[in-house]
């Protein structure tokens, strides 16, 4: 019973953090261009080594 007092808030906080992260991602437009995201990884943008 005493463990619950600690564990339940932790579980809820973790869940809320995930929910918050999703809202942030949706609002900052990370789901706007799903096809483009798959292609951008292929762009060569490394600077030549000094």
């Amino acid at each position, binding site marked *: 019973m005493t463990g619950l007092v600690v564990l339940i808030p932790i579980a*809820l906080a973790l869940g809320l953090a995930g929910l918050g992260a999703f809202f942030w991602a949706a609002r900052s437009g990370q789901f706007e261009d799903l096809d*483009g995201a798959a292609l951008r990884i292929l762009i060569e943008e490394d600077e030549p080594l000094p």
Partner: protein
Amino acid sequence: MNAPAQFDDGLGVETSTFTVDGLRCAGCIAKLESGLPQISGVVSARVNFTSKRVRIDHAATLADEDLLSAIDRLGFKAQLFVGDSDAAAKRESRRLMTALAVAGFAAMNVMLLSVSIWSGADGATRTLFHWLSAAIALPAIAYAGRPFFTSAWSALRYGRTNMDVPISIGVTLTAAMSLYETMIGGAHAYFDGAVMLLFFLLAGRFLDSAMRARAADGVAALMRRVPGDALVRLRGGATQRRLVAELAPGMLMLVAAGERIGADGVVEEGHSNVDCSLVTGESAAVAVSIGDRVLAGTINLNGPLTIRVTAAGEATMVADIARLMESATQGKGRYVRIADRASRLYAPAVHSLAVLSLVGWLIAGAGLHQALTVAVAVLIITCPCALGLAVPIAQVVAAGALMRAGILLKDGSALERLAAADTVLLDKTGTVTLGRVEPLAGIPTDPFERGVLLSLSRASRHPLSVAIAGLLERQGALPVPIADCVEQPGLGVSARLGDRVVRLGRPDWAGAPDTDDHETIAAFRIDRGALHLVTFGDAMRPDAAAAIARLQRQGFTPRLLSGDSARVVDTISDALGIAGGARMTPADKYRVIDEIAADGRKVLMVGDGLNDGPAMKRAFVAMAPASGTDVSQLAADLVFFGDRLMPVPIAIAAARRTMRVVRQNFALAIGYNLLAVPLAIAGQVTPLIAALAMSGSSLLVVANALRLRGAAK
């Protein structure tokens, strides 16, 4: 990193959005995003690959034309994008997605607490967990339930009922009852059931809306073709880029080669060829010079033109046709989707059942509390959770399968209507045939000669030459090296092969007796060798016969409707063994469909031209090839890609399978209700049973729909 967002002139930064043609790969994205900021005045450029647009932050001093020409220099064709970048369907999807996330979060956490209650927690622990559940569930219900509550409220206000009414009443009553149970320290709270119900229902809604958003995207892609702006020459010779809506008759419009023409008008200066395929469906370009009329939406191919505007915006021919199409009575507008039909029957049944059990228990002598608990259990058990998923999940899976097979759904109810179609009418040019010039006969069979012909035909951009090269390449011919290729306009192309001369061109020039017909016959000859007369025509789609045969096996009697002469139509219809109507005007086609529909039959119209537009709008359901005119694609519910006609029977077969799965899903959902409702009325349903039954039936429905992944065969 980006340059600082402030410029010396202090005018600040503006944002412009352009739609870009020819975005294909990561290289294109990199080219635009690294190339544009190198122009002075451009702060940053961001490509959205999904919507094929680039957003440029730039100094206010930099005009849109400068940006357009900058994009042009990078090798892309772009057009200023105006209008709402955020379609309504897309906004709806986003709203549903956040609601779904909240409901999912709440469902997981409440379920966690509920599992411990089911495992035997009681006394103070149970009450604490109930209170915790209430604290999570009530705000979540208030937030995630809004789509249902608002829709139910607006239906009730007009004295109607829909699927959302039993859902809203069920969820609200369940939450209220559970809160009361929690307050008096009772044993059963249904917070988990209420939240899970919302989660499953929102999942169904989200799938449905995501599909509609994708369809809306497809339509937007077609509308993009009409340019948003045009370059206008002002008095005194200066030029300015204006929105198409601001054009007026009498203005002088400059159209560069490769641009779409923004308004109807008369050519004042310049000679060029114009691609009218948007309006006529005819792929061959039309030559225009001073005094000729040109139409909005057509493409200026090779030379710059100065055009005096005669009609702009709503007065153009293209806008006229669009209006005609809108006014065509739509078989589809009146169509009631199967989910809505089901809910019309379902909602009253559920309500009366719940009220009856309440009254029944009261008469039987139970207390108000007990009777209400039973009624709520009936409501939550009958809530159409699997029913709400049954249709969208099947359609989304089938739409994905069709998309992989090159068939695009433009309308959410297209599959339902396609499955119900019982008559197939086909346009000829561009639908049963390819609608473009192809060599029909006379291509040499000798591999060496074929190789020479390929090399020679590649040297010219003449349409007949391009057609020969395309055919030989598809058949795997290997080019033979030739030298000194010379193209003589109007005659043909010649080259040296060792010490021999090879020619491809007008028959009399290549050494054959002359014919009147230079449009459909070309001659090919190696020096004094055998003469090959290549004839051209509109070839049938390669699998047309097989596709028609499959349509006949599906129980259809396909018919051709064509504007062509009887001779041409008869050749095709005889070859395919179907009936055909020739010399039909757009109004004739429309009337034929009207007559068939009057008999209560449901017509599938497949067409590609502007002249098919009204008929396709009138038909119960319509399909168009992606090579067709924009008008036909707008009128169509499904668009198919590629040179084959087989997508038509494939789509029909997939639609029928989808509807079979939808009906099975309905049977599963209702069957589960039939089992669970007597338990609920008898007062035997605990929150555990409700939760198990609900998730079980939803999973069953989803699993059944996943069988459609291979439906497009």
